[in-house]
């Protein structure tokens, strides 16, 4: 097995450097065959080029115990999860939570390439929709605008909006977005930059470019645009579908963004979705060159009251439509259709408190539970403090770092014992210890 994986690595390297042309061509033909087969099988395996993945025989790493059960393997996986959690950096605390993003879509003729199925264009639209939904789920206070690059100009497709439905509507109709002509990075970036120029300094400004072309048709010097973006602290990230372009890499490096070239559709999605979690501010200040952090600010926000759809209808201030349901601004009692938004009357920023609360578990994480290594004398409880599952009476033989042979994990504050299921659930989902409520 060692030898096998070694040889795989070798091919992998060879391919990366564009080693032998013949091999590549052959590989591509093979890949297409493989993909067809995959399609027949219902697209179970998204990894198109087996030799590009690090070859692991995952079934060999799972070991049955003497009784023939897989419990030890499962426990091992759980323990690995625990360890990862413990290693997670505790300093990733300062994240830019209020984000403004312009999604820059390449709508040039090169997007009609069929190297990703069905076309690069269709796949891009599909992934962008998923991206927008997921992005708003994790960044409830953010806003997204959409700009297209088509026929040498930048085209505004969707205005900056904090409502995912608005953004989705903008990119819903593929016939309006039919690719044509050459893309112009400079024009599109200038357009995106100008639409973010009015934003307050405490929010982040980001441009995410999905770029399928290998050329850009610019009216002027794109490096001037790049300098302007650096000055405006705009972070540019590029997901390239074709190959790496020097200017794209440079833009990402200088503005502190991420650059990635998609190998296949699965990888495309992965690198696009890597851009979803809020970026840490430390990285931003390092890339932006700013030593201090002047962007922090205190904002006044209002928490509205929601009216039910049975309340007497009244005109909303945002669309002047007669509506029953809506939100009342706490300062001026104006009726708003949707939150988060700025009140049209008094300008107060209106957010519903659950929007803010979604990020609080980043601030106050649950202390990791200690694995109980030996049975203590002080009459341990028979059941898990969380789910009341009985603990095993006897210690199991397997051991490992972070795994308790007794299946008990103790909260360091309230000293209650929890089972491993609850340990994982409390730390990953609930973010609140059942014993001490912290």
């Amino acid at each position, binding site marked *: 097995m060692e030898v096998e994986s070694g040889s795989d690595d070798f091919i992998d390297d060879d391919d990366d450097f564009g080693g032998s042309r013949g091999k590549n061509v052959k590989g591509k033909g093979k890949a297409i065959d493989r993909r067809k087969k995959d399609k027949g099988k219902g697209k179970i395996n998204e990894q198109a080029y087996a030799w590009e993945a690090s070859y692991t025989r995952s079934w060999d790493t799972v070991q049955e115990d003497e009784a023939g059960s897989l419990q030890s393997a499962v426990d091992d996986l759980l323990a690995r999860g625990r360890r990862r959690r413990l290693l997670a950096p505790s300093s990733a605390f300062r994240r830019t939570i209020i984000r403004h993003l312009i999604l820059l879509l390449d709508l040039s003729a090169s997007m009609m390439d069929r190297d990703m199925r069905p076309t690069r264009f269709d796949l891009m639209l599909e992934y962008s929709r998923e991206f927008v939904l997921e992005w708003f789920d994790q960044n409830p206070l953010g806003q997204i605008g959409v700009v297209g690059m088509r026929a040498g100009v930048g085209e505004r497709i969707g205005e900056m909006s904090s409502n995912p439905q608005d953004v989705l509507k903008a990119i819903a109709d593929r016939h309006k977005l039919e690719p044509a002509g050459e893309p112009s990075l400079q024009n599109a970036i200038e357009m995106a930059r100008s639409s973010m120029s009015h934003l307050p300094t405490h929010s982040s400004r980001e441009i995410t470019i999905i770029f399928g072309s290998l050329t850009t048709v610019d009216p002027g010097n794109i490096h001037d645009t790049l300098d302007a973006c650096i000055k405006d602290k705009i972070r540019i990230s590029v997901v390239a579908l074709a190959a790496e372009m020097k200017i794209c890499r440079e833009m990402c490096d200088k503005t502190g963004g991420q650059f990635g070239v998609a190998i296949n559709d699965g990888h495309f999605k992965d690198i696009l979705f890597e851009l979803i979690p809020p970026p840490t501010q430390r990285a931003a200040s390092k890339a932006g060159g700013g030593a201090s952090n002047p962007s922090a600010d205190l904002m006044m*926000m209002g928490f509205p009251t929601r009216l039910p759809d049975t309340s007497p209808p009244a005109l909303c201030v945002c669309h002047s439509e007669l509506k029953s349901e809506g939100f009342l601004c706490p300062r001026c009692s104006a009726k708003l259709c949707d939150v988060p938004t700025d009140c049209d009357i008094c300008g107060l920023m209106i957010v519903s408190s659950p929007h803010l609360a979604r990020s609080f578990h980043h601030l106050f994480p649950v202390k990791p539970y200690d694995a109980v290594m030996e049975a203590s004398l002080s009459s341990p409880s028979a059941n898990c403090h969380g789910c009341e599952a009985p603990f095993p009476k006897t210690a199991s033989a397997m051991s490992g770092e972070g795994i308790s042979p007794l299946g008990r994990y103790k909260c360091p504050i309230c000293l209650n014992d929890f089972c491993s299921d609850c340990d994982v659930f409390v730390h990953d989902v*609930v973010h609140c210890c059942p014993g001490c409520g912290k």
Partner: protein
Amino acid sequence: MSDFAVEPSSHMSVILDLTPAQWYLSSLPKNEYPLSFRSFLSQTLAFLNSHLASKHENTLAVYGALPGKSVILYSSTDSSVGQDETVADANSYQPFKTVDSVVASQITDELDALGDSDEEAPCQLVGALTKALCHINRIMNPNFTTGASDAPQPTREPRIIILSVSPDLSTSYIPIMNSIFSAQKLKVTIDVCKIFGPDAVFLQQAAHLTGGSYIYLERRDAYLQHLMMTFLSPRSVRGILAVPTQEKIDFRAACFCHKTIVDIGFVCSVCLSIFCQPVPVCSTCRTKFPMKTLQRLNASRPSFPPQPVVRSMSAARTPTTSTPPGTRTPSVSNHHADRTTSISSSASAKVNGSSSVAVGNGMTP
């Protein structure tokens, strides 16, 4: 299982708020509809029985939120909780009898165990809620590690019913919100019946965000009827029935500094901590805020709800000496009319008005 497609069995976790002081207040005869703990318990038990009776596969767990601690009182999925020592009785349905006797005896034990000092401690609703979630997590995802005794079970519709008598505990704002989000992830509906005391802001949000219903019990003598009509039906049936929903939902939050519930707060842009007044340094992430913002916010602070009306009047009144009052009064009353109808054309007028007010305000000190 043919009727599984029609209506899945449901799991119900009931959280009883067992705060003795609040129950004493609730039973006082000076209330319009006093409800004593004894009658509350008997009506609740009738409700629990009807849940078990409505489908054979239905399961039940009962939690008690006591001052300073939370306990599981009964669970139909775990035999380990609440040992049944009652003898079978030919005249009663055994599962009902088990629930009744176990819940009643457990509550008696727990209340007896409470010392005088414990009674002052805040009610551990969060603990009961998170325990209920852990329990639901386990029975929804039967796992090899712990659920060895559990037979493979059909998917259930889980829900949590909170029977609350104590007021909101603003210190538990963050844990409650975290529990709500995890309930959303587990697709658990949270229903709330507020039996006594003021409206609970956080529980309103919990019910709203998880698709449950929040009932404020006005006629406490009709407690059982409310339970049966509102909370007995599982989620799949509620689309057909017109279950009462809450009127207004309060989206207010508790500030981190004084734990007061605020409707206009000051939020750190880095970590989104909420404060009830402008602070120079964020207590959570240690971010320093610029002096200019503080001054600006402090200047605009007195502008809380009742104030703007008064101020627009005074702003209108100050120049009255130079101009005839007849021209001004209608414009003021217009402003008031605009506030209620809130038409967008008036919106621009109001923006002008408020900006001029701001200028006037800036000049007065």
